């Protein structure tokens, strides 16, 4: 259908539309008009992606000079592919309706592992290996060497692409990863480099967060993307953690040992080169004197996105003299390594700020702040000059140099914690230096600064006001949309007590209590008897799940559960869990029915959907608080309190509730879907917890469904399931939660729609 969104003609590739989609598009349009950032929460399964795509593509067509590019960031590879498929559908609809051929180029970008077509390289199993192998075939100096020695191996796909691929841009169309590979094979071009090259002129790019947020990758890939782009972060409820992870560094003894080996290799290589090709080193020296002017020029003329690891001041200066020659730099790194080694030889926990660390290092080994800041850049230049083939081997020393640059650049937002051993095993020495980022805004700042509109959206972003605060930006729109429903297809229940009236809670003091564990077991048993097909249960942590499963086994609860359904359990091993998941789906598919025991914050809770019969009930055992005894977390909480005035408890509850919401939200993936959401902890009934759930869940959490016993829960669930099992037709939805174009245009419907968006 064709929609009129405040004067903008939007093609929507379906015959019907959900009211909330219309409302979502309205808000989105206003955000784009204002050239500002937005935070939008809409339940999953209400067609968020297609709404985003339809509106932004329409906007792009209408105002090609205002918005030149859409950068759509998602989290996982399947999600990326999903977005591309929806886009393809939209494009097909466009060409059907308008009758003209599309001139929009849209493509997905992923790592080499997913795009490589070289027969040998692509057969490697791990991404790191693929990257390393690819680099050893395609690095510029290797190719230069090949001129003199043609027998060296090469990648013909890259060579072809380099020779021909850049002359003609990729023809317009929608390319997912497989399309790119097909195209690459047909032409004999490397799909990865083709995609990386093509994103510069593509209209729509779909890739993962890391390509924008991780400075190491963003600098390679996304640096030159146009300023007039709209950036969308989908499934962004965890975006702060992604930012923090990309800026944090951990150094263990092993890292240091490997760095030591790296440094020695460097030294030897330098000696060798000195004998054979001293001119090369001189050339490098000259370049370093000139400084990083090039990068500076580019940034000033606004071609590059700034890199948080490469702060502005560095660009204006020359590399300091003390590390300018290769030998001096290697000596410098050696000293730095020795210092770190000495720091790791401790017997008690040390926590200090970056300035303290710098002061200490200056006092002990006379290392200045300034050369430290240039470490990362200097190392990169050296590696380039020395023509080292396999960069992967130098990951340790690269890590150390990145650490050096970060610690000397940021005086705020980071903390250094040195732990001599793990808390659980105080006898085994395993010193770790955590350099941890506490401020997610550091990594995402360049994105907000560079691009005119950044949209953060997800099914669970409540409470909405916290994201702008922790990410330090000013959105023009903050809105939460509810799900309009013709039938209440979700049934949140808070179970607070067992049938014996013992409170059910995963509170630390009582979590090992026999009665609590037994009641949890009884709940699972009872639910497994009444819910058809699949049930997913989430625990607060992996160790907690292990303990509970063990005591359920001893009590014979699991064997009774097995009478009803098969049991599959998540393990820390991803491959094993994948298999368990597949078997779980198989068991749901063939009617056997199954239970998946899983962990909040685990991979399953983050990336796997349980549509329809794969998840008819989700049980959340306990409130998934993060492990609060961790020093890193404590430091972060302190920082949040001091910098953003967010109280510890507020943040912890917010974090726990967003994960709980993520877990239970896995079961509902659309309006025709239905599922029970069982919160098994009495603390969920409290207003401060309940109030932090997304609005679309809160709405259905009535007073009658709080603090139930197991029996009451079973009664309510039976009733709900029986109702839901009735046939559900399109006509039932029409006019309420599903609209035709005519219905959409009616006056009172527009009024109703205006209420859907809930401004924070």
């Amino acid at each position, binding site marked *: 259908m064709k929609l009129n969104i405040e004067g903008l003609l939007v093609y929507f590739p*379906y015959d*019907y539309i959900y009211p909330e989609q219309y409302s979502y598009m309205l808000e989105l349009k206003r955000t784009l008009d204002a050239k500002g950032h937005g935070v939008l929460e809409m339940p999953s399964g209400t*067609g968020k992606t297609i709404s985003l795509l339809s509106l932004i593509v329409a906007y792009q067509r209408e105002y090609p000079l205002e918005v030149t590019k859409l950068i759509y960031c998602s989290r996982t*590879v*399947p999600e*990326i592919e*999903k977005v591309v498929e*929806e886009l393809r559908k939209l494009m097909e609809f466009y060409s059907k309706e308008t009758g003209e051929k599309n001139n929009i180029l849209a493509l997905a970008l*992923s790592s080499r592992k*997913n795009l490589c077509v070289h027969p040998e390289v692509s057969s490697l199993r791990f991404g790191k290996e693929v990257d390393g192998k690819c680099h050893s075939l395609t690095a510029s100096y290797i190719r230069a060497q090949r001129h003199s020695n043609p027998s060296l191996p090469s990648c013909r796909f890259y060579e072809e692409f380099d020779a021909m691929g850049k002359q003609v841009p990729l023809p317009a169309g929608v390319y997912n990863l497989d399309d790119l590979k097909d195209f690459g094979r047909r032409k004999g071009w490397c799909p990865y480099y083709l995609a990386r090259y093509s994103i510069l002129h593509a209209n729509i790019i779909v890739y*993962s967060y*890391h390509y924008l947020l*991780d400075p190491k990758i963003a600098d390679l890939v996304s640096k030159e993307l146009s300023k007039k782009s709209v950036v969308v972060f989908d499934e962004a409820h965890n975006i702060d953690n992604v930012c*923090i*992870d990309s800026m*944090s*560094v*951990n150094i263990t003894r*092993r*890292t240091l040992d490997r760095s030591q080996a790296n440094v020695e290799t460097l030294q030897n290589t330098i000696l060798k080169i000195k004998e054979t090709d001293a001119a090369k080193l001189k050339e490098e020296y000259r370049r370093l004197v000139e400084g990083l002017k090039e990068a500076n020029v580019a940034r000033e003329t606004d071609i590059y996105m700034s890199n948080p690891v490469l702060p502005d001041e560095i660009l204006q200066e020359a590399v300091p003299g003390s590390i300018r020659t290769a030998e001096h730099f290697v000596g410098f790194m050696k000293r730095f390594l020795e210092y770190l080694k000495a720091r790791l030889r401790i017997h008690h926990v040390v926590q200090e700020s970056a300035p303290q660390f710098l002061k200490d290092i200056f006092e002990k080994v006379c290392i200045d702040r300034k050369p430290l800041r240039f470490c990362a850049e200097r190392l990169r230049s050296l590696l380039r000059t020395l023509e080292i083939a396999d960069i992967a081997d130098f*990951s340790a020393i690269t890590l150390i140099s990145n650490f050096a640059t970060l610690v000397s650049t940021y005086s705020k937002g980071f903390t250094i914690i040195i732990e001599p051993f793990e808390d*659980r*095993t105080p006898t*085994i020495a395993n010193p*770790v230096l955590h350099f941890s980022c506490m401020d997610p805004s550091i990594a995402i700042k360049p994105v907000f600064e560079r691009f005119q509109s950044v949209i953060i959206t997800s099914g669970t972003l409540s409470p909405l006001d916290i994201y702008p605060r922790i990410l330090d930006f000013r959105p023009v729109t903050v809105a939460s949309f509810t799900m309009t429903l013709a039938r209440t297809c979700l049934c949140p229940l808070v179970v607070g007590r067992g049938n014996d009236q013992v409170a059910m809670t995963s509170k630390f003091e009582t979590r090992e209590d026999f009665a609590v564990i037994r009641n949890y077991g009884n709940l699972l048993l009872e639910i497994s008897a009444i819910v058809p097909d699949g049930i997913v249960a989430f625990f607060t942590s992996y*160790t907690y799940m*292990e*303990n509970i*499963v*063990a005591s359920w086994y001893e009590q014979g609860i*699991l*064997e*009774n559960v*097995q*009478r009803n359904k*098969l*049991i*599959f*359990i998540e*393990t820390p091993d991803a*491959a*094993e869990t*994948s*298999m368990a*998941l*597949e*078997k779980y*789906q*198989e*068991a749901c598919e*063939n009617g*056997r029915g199954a239970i998946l025991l899983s962990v909040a914050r685990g*991979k*399953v809770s983050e*990336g796997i959907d349980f549509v329809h019969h794969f998840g008819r009930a989700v049980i959340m055992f306990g409130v998934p608080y993060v492990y609060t005894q*961790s020093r*890193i977390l404590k430091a972060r909480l302190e920082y949040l309190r001091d910098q953003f005035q967010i109280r510890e408890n507020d943040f912890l509850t917010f974090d726990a509730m967003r994960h709980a919401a993520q877990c239970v939200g896995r079961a509902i993936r*659309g309006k*025709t879907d239905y599922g029970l959401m069982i919160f098994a902890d009495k603390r969920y009934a409290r207003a401060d917890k309940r109030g932090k759930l997304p609005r679309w869940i809160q709405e259905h959490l009535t007073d009658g469904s709080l603090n139930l016993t197991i029996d009451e829960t079973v009664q309510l669930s039976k009733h709900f399931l029986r109702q839901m099992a009735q046939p559900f037709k399109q006509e039932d*939805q029409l006019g309420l939660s599903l609209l035709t174009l005519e219905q959409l245009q009616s006056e009172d419907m527009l009024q109703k729609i205006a209420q859907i968006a809930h401004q924070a």
Partner: protein
Amino acid sequence: MAALSEEVLLVVKRVRQRKQDGTLYLMAERIAWGPEGKDRFTVSHLYADIRCQKISPDGKAKIQLQLVLHTGESTNLHFSNESTALKDRDAAKDLLQQLLPKFKKRANKELEEKNRMLQEDPVLFQLYKDLVVCQVISAEEFWANRLSINNVDHSLSNNKQEVGISAAFLADIRPQTDGCNGLRYNLTSDIIESIFRTYPAVKQKYGENVPHNLTEKEFWTRFFQSHYFHRDRINTGLQDIFSECAKLDEKGLKSMVFQGVKNPMVDLLSLEDKSLEEGYGSNSTAPSTSNTNKTVKENSNSAIIKRFNHHSTMVLAALTLCMALCTIIMCFLSKMSCHFYVIEYEDLHRENGKKTVALNLKKSDRYSHGPVPLLPQQYTTSQDIVNSVNCIKHEIASYKPCLTQVMSSSTASSAIAALSPGGVLMQALAQQAINQMVPNDVQEEMKHLYTAAGELLRHFWSCFPVNTPFLEEKLTGHLEDMFQMAYNKFHAWQTRRMMRKT
């Protein structure tokens, strides 16, 4: 005594039958009773013929055992030795209890099968009546080569649907204390079957050990004692025969994990596009997962989890047929279609009136085995047809009758007359009327005689080549008699018909 060569399992003296004292013998294949003082059995039943045994209630004065045969007859045995009657009876009863089921299954099945065949096939039934009831040949001979033929398709038609396994079959063998410091496990053949199907390694061990090294009972006792059954125990004693099973299971699980998953939507390994490199990230707990600093308890806990996954997987795998179908479906829903499936919002589409139709399978085995490749067939393309038509046209155009070699008109007309109905060559048609001429009952009898003779001939021919003495004996001995008998029978019938006619 007829039973000299037989193994006598039990002899009970002073057993009365029909108010006659005598001795009861239980032998390997039959039960027999002979009156006192005589060296022959007046009662002798094969175990296979016995349907069941009944005993008199404990309080009764007469201590009796009743044998009920398949034919419905019954034999009462009265144990009359005052002091040991009860013991004697129980001994006989227990032995019978052990023996009967062994024969029962076989006998019943055969009998049922024969019965079914006779009921389903009236021709066979008639044949049976003609040959067996009239004692032309014995029942065994009659069935001898019939059952073997039928056994084949019997097994085909009886290809029952495989029953899945209850996931909780191990729960059903919950031990019960027997009151005196022991545990009793209830093990049924179903559960054993389930164990074997779920844990092929145990089956293998069973096959390796049971008849030679261990008795069945010992085997299962050890099974229940082993850590393998108690999944939370991990310390593996070396002499435990099941420690290897656990290892095998582990191996199987590993190989399954290594194979990876087919559905990209659940593959957690390839979910992340770009994982953080080593050393980055805020909570790198990677080094802490090493096994060294794990407590025993944690290890056993993770062992439980692993085994639960394995157990469920194996239970699922036991539904092999279903599995095969699922994998086929999974293949169909290969990468692309998977995504397609996921992005569809079915309710946003206008319903196109496409009603789905339930799958109505005529040949379910074809469905599960997939399409059969077409047999090579000779097709005539339209081009071929056009060509041949042209060819014929061409032939016709150039056709010249060869007038010198044609038949004279008179012979031609007489040939036509002879071939017309009523003509000389067509007179055989008149024999059709025999249907009407001969009365139905005669026809029927004739038919029966014919099939009976046919059956005898079949027996006759099946004796060739004569390569065993048994066949020779059969050929020269009673087959001859049988033919004679059949001939006599036919002759009798013939004369009877003649008599009636005249």
